[in-house]
């Protein structure tokens, strides 16, 4: 049988790595599955890996690049003895303790689990997305902005991510049109002001993308006016989609209580999930705040919850381990 870990952490964004820092400093020798490389936000380091300047993380007066910030989190977690595997857990069994998790066909066992798998970018769900990915449709503005020098491109969405991407892309593109379903942005005030002041940014309000046009490369967007139902065409050679996120909870289906919106349910004021000994932190359980600092804060809470829970239950006989805790 494999060794039973004190705590396994799934995910390596601000939540997972902060949980690792605290758990490692509590001598729990956490095992952390950081995920696998990808060109979407679903990758080691999480959503911040595809951003540029992070200006609201306290302590960095002049801002810090997202990937650099996450590199520092990771180093700090490693410094205190976190064991990091660049793998993704693809199956879990939380029905009995110790819990079991599988990655690349190998079984791992753990007394406690922290779920910090975050969220991935929502796509439009159009068949054309598959065909045109890498041919004008991109999931990574920081990677691919360079290829759109002097071109007219579109960013779909109206939140902070959309505005950040659009602003970044004006370094390369001649014109960036923000296509948004509503008539006002959801982004923070400072981001909105930046977008409205930028002469290269245009807005296509109350419009839905019904198709990305082009056979072998992006040639335009088919739009639908959500108030009149009228169709129109926007000629662009590049498209970036930033219409929100979906929590990564597929592997926990049937194992943990999950909201209909896809977020893991936690007991208010804690990181306890519906299964004793399994804790959740960061964007996978937060539909409200979804910031790096709140994710990090809840990662800290999860590690402290785990430490206390292990103290109470770790070496308890099986019958005692069933005793409900005070939540």
């Amino acid at each position: 049988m494999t060794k039973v870990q004190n705590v396994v952490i799934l995910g390596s964004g601000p939540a997972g790595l902060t949980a690792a820092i605290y758990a490692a400093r509590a001598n729990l020798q956490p095992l952390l599955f950081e995920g696998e490389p990808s060109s979407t936000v679903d990758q080691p380091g999480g959503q911040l890996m595809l951003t540029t300047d992070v200006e609201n993380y306290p302590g960095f007066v002049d801002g810090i690049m997202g990937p650099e910030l996450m590199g520092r989190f990771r180093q700090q977690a490693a410094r205190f003895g976190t064991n990091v595997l660049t793998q993704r857990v693809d199956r879990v069994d939380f029905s009995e303790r110790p819990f079991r998790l599988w990655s690349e066909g190998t079984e791992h066992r753990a007394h406690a689990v922290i779920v910090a798998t975050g969220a991935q970018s929502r796509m439009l769900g159009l068949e054309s997305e598959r065909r045109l990915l890498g041919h004008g449709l991109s999931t990574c503005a920081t990677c691919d902005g360079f290829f759109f020098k002097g071109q007219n491109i579109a960013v779909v969405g109206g939140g902070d991510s959309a505005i950040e991407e659009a602003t970044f892309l004006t370094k390369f593109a001649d014109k960036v049109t923000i296509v948004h379903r509503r008539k006002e942005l959801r982004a923070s005030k400072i981001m909105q002001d930046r977008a409205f002041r930028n002469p290269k940014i245009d807005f296509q309000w109350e419009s839905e993308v019904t198709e990305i046009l082009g056979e072998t490369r992006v040639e335009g967007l088919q739009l639908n006016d959500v108030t009149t139902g009228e169709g129109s065409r926007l000629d662009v050679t590049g498209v970036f989609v930033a219409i929100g996120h979906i929590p990564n909870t597929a592997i926990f289906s049937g194992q943990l209580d999950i909201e209909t919106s896809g977020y893991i349910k936690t007991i208010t004021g804690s990181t306890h999930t519906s299964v004793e000994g399994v804790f959740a932190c960061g964007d996978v359980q937060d539909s409200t705040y979804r910031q790096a600092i709140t994710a990090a804060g809840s990662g800290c809470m999860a590690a402290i919850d785990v430490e206390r829970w292990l103290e109470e239950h770790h070496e308890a006989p099986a019958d005692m381990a069933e005793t409900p805790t005070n939540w």
Partner: protein
Amino acid sequence: MAGSISQVSEATFDEEIKGSNEPVLVDFWADWCGPCHAVAPILEEIATEKAGVLRIAKLNVDENPGIASRFGVQSIPTMILFKDGKATDLRIVGAKSKSALLTEITPYI
């Protein structure tokens, strides 16, 4: 240069691709691209493991935009497999895990 990754440029690209006995997987990348850095160590492992049947070469798109544009690369990392000096239809867009990359590459080598 079995097992190691070579850097190709606009000046050396055609010669390196045509002159290779093995298929060559060209990794289009740039320094500013995080996912490119994430996939680089995986490509090194694959180059070592597949030495003799596959070569891997890196092309910096920032320094060599002409080659990137010739093959319609608009997203990085993009990995294109060349055989007998010509691009095959194996074109991998985006960083992936080692097992996912091998699943795509293996049928071609």
